[in-house]
């Protein structure tokens, strides 16, 4: 297939209908700086052929695309949408014009994919989940529609689905997905998909069937024999048993191999995302740990805060500042004691006075009752003489009565509070030290509280940081099921190992059985001499040899293919790297498994002049290694000759290369592929006359064109540009223009 033209209308950043590239047989380079629509041009091809655009998520698998029903209105130019009136529609359309020549028969097609979206109000669009696809075939004077039933066949003939990822790939990830240098299955898959190795399986199948037919005829004849019947019977029984076992083992080997392949494919599909998933998994674990630490710190802080309230009482904080009260209490208690003592002394004194008063009469003075009696009788009984009222004696007696002290009533007993206050005071004294240090303890506790809160804040910050880091990683990778991916990867790796073990065991048993079958065959042939027609024995023998031969030849052919692939990859590798002057080594496909028991897989490595594997290759060497293998895949297979049939379309394949190496890649690509369309940002220079714009590096392009002309190749260059003043930062302004570069 040759691609003659692509016309793009309102597709992603290609606004309007004037976007057209015309391609030539040879090297087509499309130059575009970042954000100028390089990948969108690649997507335009993808969309027409696959009804999808490249899935940029790391989880995407080999050649993975996001289909129209997933992207819908995202396909449509934002600028065209911005200009669309309510009620109107925008049509997105990409047309690829191709020609295909096989066996002298030239056919031309137009492949057209269209998507329409209608605006129902300012913010709402009707976005169907399907695009329309048409193939038109050139018929003498014009293009005419081809029935839909033929679409798949035509597309498959133009470029088979299994070939497409190897000649159409995007950027470093696209290359990495194709050739995984760490996978032993990667090259095996490549060889299986892109070579005619399967043809040798057909030879094996036919030879096996032919042999079985001959063997059945031989066995039938042998049964009729009358000599050595017992031994022949034993051998035939064992033979049938072993054959059944071999068949069963082959079936098991096929199943195990398919299962291993399936697990390998699962692993390969996850390879792009496993690194992200593992990172996300680790970040998730780190986030969980940070969350647990944060929650623990919050709980600890809350518990501490609750403790602070309790400490108001349990640690006497409530008594903070009460020391003066204690001192006042002490003073009051002392005063109380003094007051009690004074009162007691006073009372004592009073009583003594009273007592003294009550007994102030001399011993010979009668008691008041006798005084009153004497007054009543007006007679002094002391001196026993009359004392009439009004007499001096009466007055003298009466004076004794007047001075009679008042009988003091005994004081009512009072409750003795001293022990109570004493105890109170003693208790207070007991807390004195504690009260004195409350301030210090409060300060200490508040310090601890602040430390705890600082810790909570630090854990919160760490937790937030982990959450942000995780979210960023998830957004960057588009992975939201990291644990599933990691689990699936672990499962796939475990499956690969398990099935590998099964395969080794089954293959060993099968070989033992086959060896024994050969011995039985040889013995039966000997026993059959004279019993079975010689032609039958000869036929069986030669068909057995043929069957074994077909198996050996397939193995040899496979090894030859690997060698051819390695040789061709080295040619491309050397052509790309030698002019840089830096070390690049040699590609070697190392058989995987063990030396005694290779597993049929190969791993590409770089070796130095001493044959040692070189580790820690820089990305430029790794990319050139992979690109060389891809070129080798395409050009090494002379039978299918992909380089002639299918154009290379690659977006940013040389992003890891310096300009010298990129130039070598362009030359190598031109020499390998009949047609190549390479979309790159290299060979562009800043345009000093225009702000933020670029211009082609014409001296290098002239140099490249001169080189290509010398080998009869054509160079065709376009530049993706943008009108001055338009920013590619605003999607509804983006408008890519296409300039043909005159080299």
């Amino acid at each position, binding site marked *: 297939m040759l691609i003659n033209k692509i016309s793009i209308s309102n597709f992603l950043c290609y606004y309007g209908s004037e976007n057209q590239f015309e391609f030539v047989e040879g090297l087509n380079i499309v130059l575009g700086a970042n954000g100028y629509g390089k990948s969108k041009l690649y997507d335009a091809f993808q969309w027409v052929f696959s009804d999808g655009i490249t899935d940029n998520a790391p989880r995407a698998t080999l050649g993975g695309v996001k289909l129209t029903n997933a992207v819908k209105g995202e396909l449509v130019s934002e600028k065209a949408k911005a200009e669309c009136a309510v009620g109107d529609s925008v049509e997105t359309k990409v047309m690829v014009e191709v020609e295909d020549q096989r066996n002298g028969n030239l056919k031309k097609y137009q492949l057209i994919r269209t998507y329409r979206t209608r605006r129902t109000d300012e913010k709402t669009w009707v976005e169907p989940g399907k695009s329309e696809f048409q193939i038109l075939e050139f018929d003498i004077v014009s293009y005419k529609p081809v029935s839909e039933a033929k679409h798949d066949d035509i597309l498959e003939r133009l470029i088979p689905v299994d070939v497409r990822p190897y000649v159409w790939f995007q950027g470093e990830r696209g290359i990495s997905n194709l050739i995984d240098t760490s996978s032993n299955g990667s090259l095996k898959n490549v060889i299986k998909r892109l070579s*005619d190795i399967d*043809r040798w399986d*057909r*030879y094996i*199948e*036919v*030879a096996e*069937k*032919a042999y*079985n*037919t*001959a063997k059945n005829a031989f066995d039938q004849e042998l049964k009729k024999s009358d000599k050595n019947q017992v031994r022949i019977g034993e051998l035939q029984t064992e033979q049938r048993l072993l054959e059944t076992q071999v068949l069963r083992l082959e079936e098991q080997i096929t199943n195990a191999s398919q299962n291993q392949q399936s697990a390998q494919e699962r692993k390969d599909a996850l390879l792009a995302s496993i690194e992200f998933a593992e990172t996300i998994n680790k970040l998730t674990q780190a986030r969980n740990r940070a969350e647990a630490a944060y929650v623990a710190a919050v709980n600890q802080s809350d518990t501490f805060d609750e403790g602070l309230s309790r400490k108001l009482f349990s640690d006497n904080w409530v008594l903070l500042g009460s020391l003066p009260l204690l001192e006042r209490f002490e003073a009051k208690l002392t005063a109380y004691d003094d007051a009690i003592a004074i009162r007691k002394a006073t009372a004592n004194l009073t009583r003594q006075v009273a007592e003294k008063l009550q007994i102030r009469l001399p011993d010979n003075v009668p008691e008041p009752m006798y005084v009153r009696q004497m007054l009543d009788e007006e007679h002094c009984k002391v001196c026993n003489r009359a004392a009439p009222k009004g007499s001096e004696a009466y007055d003298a007696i009466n004076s004794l009565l007047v001075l009679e002290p008042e009988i003091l009533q005994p004081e009512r007993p009072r409750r003795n509070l001293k022990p109570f206050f004493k105890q109170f005071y003693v208790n207070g004294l007991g807390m004195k030290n504690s009260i004195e240090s409350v301030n210090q303890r409060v300060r200490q506790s508040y310090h601890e509280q602040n430390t705890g809160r600082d810790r909570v804040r630090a854990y919160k910050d760490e937790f937030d940081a982990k959450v942000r880091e995780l979210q960023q990683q998830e957004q960057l990778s588009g992975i939201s099921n990291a644990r599933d991916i990691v689990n699936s990867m672990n499962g796939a790796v475990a499956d690969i190992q398990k099935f590998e073990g099964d395969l080794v065991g089954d293959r060993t048993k099968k070989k033992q059985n086959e060896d024994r079958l050969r011995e039985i065959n040889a013995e039966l042939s000997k026993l059959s001499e004279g019993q079975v027609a010689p*032609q039958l024995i*000869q*036929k069986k023998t*030669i*068909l057995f*040899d*043929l069957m074994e*031969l*077909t198996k*050996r*030849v397939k193995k*040899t*052919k496979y090894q030859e293919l690997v060698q051819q692939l390695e040789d061709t990859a080295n040619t491309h590798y050397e052509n790309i790297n030698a002019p840089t002057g830096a070390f690049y080594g040699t590609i070697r496909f190392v058989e995987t498994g063990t030396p005694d028991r290779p597993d049929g897989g190969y791993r590409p490595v770089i070796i130095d002049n001493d044959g040692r594997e070189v580790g820690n290759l820089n990305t430029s060497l790794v990319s050139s290694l992979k690109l060389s293998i891809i070129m080798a895949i395409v050009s090494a297979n002379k*039978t299918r000759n992909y380089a002639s049939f299918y154009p290379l379309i690659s977006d940013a394949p040389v992003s890891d290369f310096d300009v010298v190496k990129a130039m070598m890649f362009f030359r190598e690509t031109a020499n390998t592929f009949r047609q190549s369309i390479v979309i790159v940002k290299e060979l562009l220079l800043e345009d000093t006359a225009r702000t933020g714009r670029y211009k082609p590096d014409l001296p290098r392009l002239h140099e490249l064109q001169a080189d290509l002309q010398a080998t009869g190749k054509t160079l065709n260059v376009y530049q993706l540009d943008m009108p001055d003043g338009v920013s590619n930062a605003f999607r509804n302004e983006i408008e890519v223009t296409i300039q043909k570069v005159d080299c």
Partner: protein
Amino acid sequence: MTQLDIVKSFLEDAEIQQKYGLTPADMAQMTMTSHHNTRAQMLVGLVRQLVNVVEDGSTPNLAANRLNAHLNTTLV
């Protein structure tokens, strides 16, 4: 890959050459109709027939029957 190339791919196998007395010189001069010693000729004929039937696109059963029929004829 021509049918002769495929036939040669089979007959270049060292083990089969040794067993059937084929030499590198035989291989170099081989055509689709060249003759060899009787034993080798039988194998070469069988391989040619195998390549014919497989490349013709015959079904495996039909192809196997044709190989048996071919040997029935040549081994008489």
